């Protein structure tokens, strides 16, 4: 799952998936702004066929939190 998340992050943030570290979050990835955050969310929802509620979305600002949230769905 982690690799798939990285692939999607790579597409949204226009970076290489291989360069994404497990510890990366919105403070370490320059293109991760609030607009791209929405793009990331809709891309993840489509890929994993899930839906995040608005309260969750604001928390999903790191690879780790995204992975944990997806696992709990």
């Amino acid at each position: 799952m982690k690799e798939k998340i990285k692939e999607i992050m790579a597409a949204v943030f226009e970076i290489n998936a291989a360069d994404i570290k497990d510890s990366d979050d919105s403070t370490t990835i320059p293109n991760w702004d609030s607009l791209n955050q929405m793009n990331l969310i809709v891309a993840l929802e489509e890929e994993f066929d899930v839906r995040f509620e608005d309260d969750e979305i604001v928390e999903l600002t790191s690879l780790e939190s995204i992975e944990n949230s997806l696992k709990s769905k």
Partner: protein
Amino acid sequence: MEIKYSELLKLNKELKDGNSSEEYNIKILSNIIVNQLTQIVEYPLQKRGVNAIASCGNFDNIVQDSIQFNKSNCVLIFWELCNIVDGFQYKSNVLTESEKSAIIEKTKSEIDYTLTNLNSTSIVIINYFSTTVFNHQFIGRNNYDEICRELNNYLESKKTRNVVLFDIDKIFAKISVSSSVDFRNYYSSKTLYTLDFFEVYSSMITPIITSVFGKSKKALIFDCDNTLWKGILGEDGESGIEMSGKSAKGVFFEEVQFMAKELASRGIIIGLNSKNNPEDVKKVIKDHESMSLKESDIVIEKVNWNDKVSNLQNIAKELNIGLDSIVFIDDSDFEINLVKEYLQEVYTIQVPQNLYEYPSLFRKNIDLFYSILNTKDDAARVKSYKDQVVREQAKNSYGSINEYLESLDLEMIIYIDHKDLIERMAQLTQKTNQFNLTTKRYTFTQVEEFVKTNQYITFAFEVNDKFGKFGITGESFVSINGHEATIDTFLMSCRVLGRNIELKFLEELVLYLESKGITQIKSSYIKTQKNQQVEDFYERAGFTLTGDFGELKNYELNIKDQKKVAINYISVKYERKN
């Protein structure tokens, strides 16, 4: 979405990285957040070779952005009624009359500013205001609907030629309101539309943009049996085929024939490519009471026992259009696959098994022929293409080509800086691909500027012969700098090729410039995928090559050195009207 969003982002990036053609800038102005649209709008255009680069303006800043971004190639506007005033979908219904009219007046003046600022932008696509997202839930109409209607009427009254008003209700109808909107982040961050909505929006506006790149289809070619009528003429006979609205199976074909007739009236070439006895088909078209398409609508007939691939190639050749301008409709798997196999450029439509789906499938493809400009020459073009086919046949009965050309009584009328022709001149720059030396696309406003200013002279010509009129079929825009002139644009519709009209026109153009004190003319050829046939045009016309950069060749002509081409079978008249 048809492909996943993340996949689209990846593919789009690859296409953009590999696309070296000139950037086509699209700016999206909006009063809601639509930033996911940028790449979704780029992708189908990138797939068609247009190097579209889209970006969003500032949030809720449509008027100011319209000044800042009016140099973009295309502007898309998402002006949402619910946000013209914060919470307008509910506040609008309790306004006093004076509050209501104040908001309407404010919005109208914003529309005015925006449209004025974008007056010179080549394409502006504005969504009609819509109440559907909120008001589809109940029967009654309210203030919100009334205001919406008034603003839409206003938009229509202010619409200029470069503006396309787009009906987003069609998207809601296609994929439902609930698939189109997501309120999850509307109240917090003003995002409203879903990826699915953007995908449909993008697919619907793509033909508008590609039409200015000369990518619209020009010809619609029908097989006859089970395509224009139900049944097989050779077996069922003239009385056994059905295409009447009164017959159970014929009604689908009547509907398709009517839609084809409408396309013919817009200047689309309708043709036949059918395995049948030509006399039988001719008789049906001429005499069958249920035929809605008439002889006058059908430009070219390849009714014979040859294979359909060669017929299509001949159609392209005789009409002087590219194979990629042709749409071919047939009912047979075999024929459709044969064409797909050998002529990938031809767009094919197969008549569906369930005949009641045929008219709907036809409608779905109508935008292939989309053109942003509609001129009165369009309708005349059908007649002109027909005359061309008669001419091709006449060619065979003359000994030499010159003898034939002399017999045509060719006449050329040259119009200089003619205001009534601006729209047609702009359309020619957008549609002409093959005989086009520089392939520069111009909008109405740009051509209007050329006509007005003294720095440019615009020449447009009309050609007539004894078989009929071609209308305005060629033009040239020349910039003037002292005693030197530069040919910016020189193009001709391929319908009039093969008559040396291009050489006569160039000769006249040189004579005219000479009479205005010009001594030196510069010109160039810019290579595209489609204009190889004019690669050596200026050499043939006696210009000297001064620079060859592969994709670009520069030429010069000292007028006093020009050799006359001695074409005496084309008479020339001048018209100048301002």
